[in-house]
């Protein structure tokens, strides 16, 4: 396949590659909605029916979409909304309010956002954004005025629903759910969360007002499905301008997926996490390696990308440390071994280090105390070590108790890869006793 000529009948390769990258990036990064929700058809139908009833019949509802991260909760909701809005009846009626627990961190902000998204602030000028209490009264009155048959239904989407449950008194949730359970303006409250125990977060009154509808997104794709997904994600559709290029590309993807090593890599990813978002990340890394000179994804690319994904962050950081800092880490590791994870302080580490130096009788690592202190502080800044109790600053720095934040395997791995690591240091690290 690498033999493929760059003399293309339709478009130059560079142009094709640009277009390809654009299409695939959109697919992988922008979470483009699939045409059909895969594996969640039942949930899709349930949710669509529910929201349709709100939009069309004016029936108030509340529902939670629960599933682990990357399970496609938002995707499902967006698909449903897309399908729902295809109906003119719903389209002309439905008002939408989107809130996110990470953005609307308290009820005051949430209320302002609701008011803004409902375009109610135009009604009263800047008056809405008065006090929190006024806002609440304002909004409640607005909702209270409506009734089932005459007002437009409002869809409240609460992303990270569990975070709203941490707001003071759960005022917002109580009021939204109360509206949904009383003869006021028809609203649908849709919450998405990854917490399975979300109902236990709700206060009893709030809980009673919640309709207890939960849509669980616990899909369990098999590896074959996973593999298929990879292939479809990377394949180009027929409407790609350059037919020849797209045919070649699709063929290359097919061979790629049949490759043994590729399957192995993907299996490892699949074992680690079944969600598609991590897969997209992997594929993105592969995609970025595609260029005009190399217009296909090769198994090696995938391997590289996979390595990058699984790389240990802390171990990588160790590679950038100085020898002295590395020695201190090793000393700490020995201390951890000896004292079974008890915390240590700078003096202990220094002593341990000195013991190593005495054995070597090598003046090469003779450092002044302040230099060691500096290295120690650098390690703390890198969060390789952290003080046991962060608050107490009274004790002298030399005697503050610290814990090592690294696992032994990480230290050893870093040592293996450390460029030009002195052998005696390596041996010292390997030795069972300090």
């Amino acid at each position, binding site marked *: 396949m690498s033999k493929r000529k760059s003399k293309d009948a339709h478009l130059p390769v560079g142009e094709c590659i640009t277009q390809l990258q654009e299409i695939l990036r959109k697919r992988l990064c922008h979470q483009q909605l699939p045409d059909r929700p895969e594996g969640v058809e039942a949930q899709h139908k349930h949710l669509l029916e529910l929201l349709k009833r709100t939009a069309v019949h004016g029936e108030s509802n509340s529902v939670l979409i629960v599933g682990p991260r990357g399970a496609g909760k938002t995707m499902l909701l967006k698909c449903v909304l897309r399908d729902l809005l295809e109906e003119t009846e719903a389209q002309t009626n439905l008002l939408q309010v989107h809130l996110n627990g990470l953005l609307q961190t308290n009820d005051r902000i949430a209320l302002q956002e609701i008011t803004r998204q409902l375009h109610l602030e135009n009604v009263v000028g800047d008056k809405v954004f008065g006090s929190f209490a006024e806002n609440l009264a304002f909004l409640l*009155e607005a909702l209270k005025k409506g009734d089932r048959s005459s*007002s437009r239904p409002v869809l409240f989407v609460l992303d990270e629903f569990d975070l709203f449950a941490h707001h003071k008194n759960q005022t917002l949730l109580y009021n939204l759910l109360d509206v949904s359970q*009383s003869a*006021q303006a028809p609203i649908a409250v849709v919450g998405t969360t990854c917490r399975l125990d979300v109902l236990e977060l709700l206060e009893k009154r709030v809980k009673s007002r919640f309709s207890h509808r939960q849509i669980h997104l616990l899909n369990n794709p098999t590896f074959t499905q996973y593999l298929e997904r990879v292939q479809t994600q990377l394949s180009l559709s027929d409407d790609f301008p350059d037919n020849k290029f797209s045919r070649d590309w699709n063929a290359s993807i097919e061979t790629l997926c049949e490759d043994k090593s590729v399957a192995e890599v993907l299996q490892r990813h699949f074992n*680690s996490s079944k969600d598609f978002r991590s897969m997209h990340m992997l594929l993105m890394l592969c995609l970025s390696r595609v260029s005009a000179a190399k217009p296909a994804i090769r198994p090696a690319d995938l391997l590289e990308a996979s390595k990058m994904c699984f790389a240990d962050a802390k171990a990588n950081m160790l590679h950038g440390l100085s020898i002295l800092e590395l020695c201190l880490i090793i000393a700490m590791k020995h201390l951890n071994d000896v004292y079974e994870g008890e915390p240590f302080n700078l003096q202990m580490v220094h002593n341990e280090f000195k013991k190593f130096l005495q054995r070597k009788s090598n003046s090469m690592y003779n450092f002044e105390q302040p230099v060691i202190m500096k290295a120690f502080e650098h390690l703390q800044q890198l969060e390789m070590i952290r003080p046991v109790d962060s608050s107490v600053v009274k004790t002298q720095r030399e005697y503050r108790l610290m814990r090592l934040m690294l696992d032994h395997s990480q230290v050893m791995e870093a040592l293996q890869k450390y460029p030009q690591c002195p052998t005696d240091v390596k041996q010292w690290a390997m030795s069972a006793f300090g």
Partner: protein
Amino acid sequence: MKYFTRLRVRRVYKWRGAPLSFNRKLKTCEYGSLDISVEGLPRITVIKTGEHILIEGDDEDNPYVAKVIRLFGDENGKQKKAVVQWFVRVSEVPLSKLKLLGREPHPQEIFYYQGRSCDDEVDAESILRTVEVKHLDGAAPFPDSDDRGTLYVKLSWDSKTFKAVESEPAPASSCSPPPCPKPSLPPSPPCSPPAAAPASRGPARRALPTPDLAVMRRAATGEVRYCRATMSAGNAATAEAESMHSVTKRSASKCLSAKRRGISARTPGIRKKLELSSPEKKSMISEDLMSQLLDEELKSEVMLAQRLSLSPPQAVPLKHSLTPLRKNHRAPTAQGSFPLKPSAVVLNKMSLSEMNGSPSSARLDSTSPQQGDDEMEAGLPADSVGTPRRRNCTPRRQYLTRGQKATTPSQKWEPKTLKEPALGMLAEADNETSPMLPVIATPRSSKRKSAQLVSSRIRKQLNLLENQQDLNSDGEEEDEFVLSKKELQSSSDDDDEEEEAGLDSDEEVVVKKGRNAAAATSKQRTRSLTRTPRKTPKKKITPGTPRTPCRATPSIPSRSRPARLPANVLEEARTRLHVSSVPESLPCREQEFQDIYSFVESKIVDGTGGCMYISGVPGTGKTATVHEVMRCLQHAADVDEIPPFHFIEINGMKMTDPHQAYVQVLQKLTGQKSTADHAAALLEKRFSNPAPRKETTVLLVDELDLLWTRKQNVMYNLFDWPTRRHARLVVLTIANTMDLPERIMINRVASRLGLTRMSFQPYSFKQLQQIIMSRLNKVKAFEEDALQLVSRKVAALSGDARRCLDICRRATEICEHSSADSHSTGLVGMSHVMEALNEMFSSAYITAIKCASVQEQLFLRAVIAEFRRLGLEEATFQQVFVQHQALCRVEGLQPASVSEGLAVCQRLGACRLLLLEPSRLGVLQRVRLNVSQDDVLYALKAD
């Protein structure tokens, strides 16, 4: 609106002059005027009967407005009392009722109060000062004057509806002859009111066409009724009405008035004599006329008309008025206030010129109260009040009011005569009664439904007319159209009504000559319109005044397409089963309903206050029951079975801070907005001051526990107010826990809450079943067994009716889906219900574990292994990770790196399968299981 700046000044109240009379029985002395001097200031304010005053109220910015009817004190001068006619400020009208007004109230607008529920006897020392009150015609625009101190009256308010003010109360007393031997005469009627009217009006105004015939009519027929009605006004306009309920304690004066009424009714003969003896010529004449009317039975109308017209000394204006007479011949009903107009006009004129021979004084402003002797003083304030009003009136309205005014005298006149005997020679008695008169008229007329109906119809038509005119003439747009009801009620049957309407428009055309040509055509229109079939009278065309943006209340925009109605049985059932649908009755809570109902009702009837605490787990119908009770009570109040009351509701969950409770209560009571502290102060004042005009307030405090503050002052106040003597506050509180008072309240709060408690038990399965059945209301959508399963399941779990309904609703959905592809009966069966129950109650942990990735499952295994090793239910990530790697090797997987392991751990933590410490602790974070180990093992084994 600041009415007085020095709040803390000490006022000294002194009677001015010697008592006018002394009532032996009650040991009270009547006085003509009261001096108020502020300590340290030389100026003295004189309050006289008939003047409008401000009375200290619970809101310092908006003191009560009233008109002095009578001033009296006890023998030794210790107590000073005043009998007043109340006016209601906009802020005192409940917000909900304010809508009835159909327009934005003017900030300085006040309403003539006709309610029955307030005491009209006040402590004279609560009087602040006088205030200028102008009576405006219904349609007259509010003057744009900057004078913040002037208040305007357009309508009257009887705690249910707004009505046009029947007659100007003020002028009635104005010329009532104080010096006359029988001062007790309420309003020496006919002469006085007019005094003010014509003064300001130009001579160009044509006298009314409909003449006095109706007077005679009325004289003939409606006499007795009137007398009684008016009499009650003697002390309290409301006394009579209240007597029905006789719940509130009567003030002494009220008793007196009742007595008088009785006596007077029995001795009608005296009337005439007394009247004749009245020194004032004009009043004498009018009284003479009236008494004749009274005494004689119906005579020939023409005769009377002549007499009437002749009676006043100045016959000139009458000539005009007589012209349309023919029409009025047919107006037979007794109370025709409308036809009276001309006579009134005449009298007005007359009084103007003749009044005590000092015509100029009649026009004097109230600011010059000293002049004249007592007699004059009585009249003056009224005059002054009357005059400004005239100025503001649009021509047409003036004409109407004139008509109304004319009625008052005639009405007044009865009570006066009746009262005489009892009252003896009280000089000021007339003042006391006169302003009440309009009040009297309303209840009577309001009773006549047909008349009302007709009148409202006509009003509507006139509205139409007015609108049309507005369209035609730009200049008139501000001319708000509020017809005086009185006018319209004057005749009982349609024909007359039409007649009058026609007349009216006739008149209008004439009067509004200057307006535009459209008015002329409108006349015909009115005519034709009057014959159109009846329409619902409720509708009122609101003037197109743009709402001020700050007061605009927001709402969700209305939908462009109508909501679809349920199409099949299941959808129908689903609609009915929605928690929000309000059932006709609440089954299974009859006892609780009864208890709450009787509690609140008794408090309302007694005019006392009290607290009740209602507890129960969520979804047991606490709030619904209270609302149901309130609906019933409101209904009872509407049909006058119990005194009217005011229901407001706050919810601890619907406020941002416990102290917002004050703000919300205040806002719902008065419509005011204020800060929490200020609101607390205002409410405190409101509930502790003996404000006389007060309805019982029923306050529902939902989610009480959220009003808890450290000092508990919010709760304390809420429970303390009902114990105040004058508060008339009933507080119903709702919370979930039965022992809330004991648990969170300090003693003094719990003590005030009292022991009136009620507990809503969770519904039993039978009750739940009954609830569903009653909701479904014979819609056959469920199998019997299915219902029983749901209700048993819910009753066992929580007894929450909401849950029960939600499950049923979900079951109908499931049924609908399954019936689409299979052959089911269309009824919701056991399987559907089971599925719904499973969906709602089963936890997803096990499924989640089953669906987890290999590494995640391994990690869970590692956690359990580590727990077993440690013998603890907690381990650090580092420890678990060692296990994890070992397990990986056992499983033949490539060992995961620490980063990967942490990611797996975090994912499990996000689902709350694991409980984790904050992730910044890295490998040191501790891990716990959120599921039981058995569940994990079960899930992993089944894999």
